[in-house]
């Protein structure tokens, strides 16, 4: 079975990943550790004044790249001892849609995702990305929250 584990920088994503390996993983399962990165945001205020905010753009881009590489490193380390696990990182304009596209592209059989990530709106129990993935995935989805 091909398993698609969606991760971000959150602790919950890591917990979901660990829980999957501890409780659900079977020999013979292929695992994809997936991340759908967003383009860095540059506040629109930076564009006031008529000039292109070159410095801001460079800074935001560098920061986003740094985070992306750090996340990749983190999970590369975690899957070091697993023979059939691979990293699958892409950049998409909308992370939720990106994840669903990536999941379909990979022909996975099962998706694992944390209920919430790093999103700002902490009132909601279910994050917007897991909510979207759950509604649009064509394969079983495990929503992890603890």
């Amino acid at each position, binding site marked *: 079975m091909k398993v698609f584990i969606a991760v971000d920088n959150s602790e919950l994503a890591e917990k979901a990943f660990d829980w999957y390996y501890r409780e*659900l993983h*079977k020999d013979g399962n292929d695992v994809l550790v997936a991340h759908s990165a967003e383009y860095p945001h540059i506040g629109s205020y930076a564009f006031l004044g008529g000039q292109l905010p070159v410095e801001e753009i460079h800074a935001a881009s560098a920061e986003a790249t740094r985070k992306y590489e750090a996340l990749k490193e983190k999970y590369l380390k975690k899957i070091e001892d697993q023979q059939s696990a691979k990293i699958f990182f892409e950049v998409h304009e909308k992370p939720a849609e990106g994840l669903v596209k990536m999941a379909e592209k990979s022909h996975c059989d*099962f998706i694992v995702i944390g209920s919430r990530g790093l999103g700002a709106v902490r009132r909601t*129990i279910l994050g917007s990305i897991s909510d979207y993935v759950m509604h649009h995935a064509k*394969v*079983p*989805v*495990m929503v992890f929250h*603890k």
Partner: protein
Amino acid sequence: MKVLIAVDESDIAEKTFEWYLNKIHKPDNDIVVSHAGEPPHLPTLKFMSEGAVFPSDEIKNIMTQSNKKLEEFKNKYSLKCAEKKIKCKLMFQLSDKSPGETIVKIANEEACDVIVMGTRGLGAVRRTILGSVSDYVIHHARIPVIICPK
């Protein structure tokens, strides 16, 4: 690990059950299969030419039928487990409580580690992609929930 599989009479529930057994199940997993059906509608008064009558016979028939259906449904899953030589605890009941509440309640009482269920069941509102029961469970369960689509 203790797994709660919530089923109703829909095809999705059956497929979900099979999928779990074929793809996810591990020999030392304990399984609880639950069903929280709606109790039948019982007539209260019957108006006949002699006046209002309490339709006790009709009620008795309806209840007998309903219990029989529940028993048959329970046996269906009992057989599925026996075929695969898997031990499972069957908790099939009719309840006035919403199915979502019952599922979460059973998960707590049985100390389950994960819930497996279909996205939708036999519900009437077909416009929605995610049924109201699975929606409720995802929002109220404190353990991981696996949702299986059609």
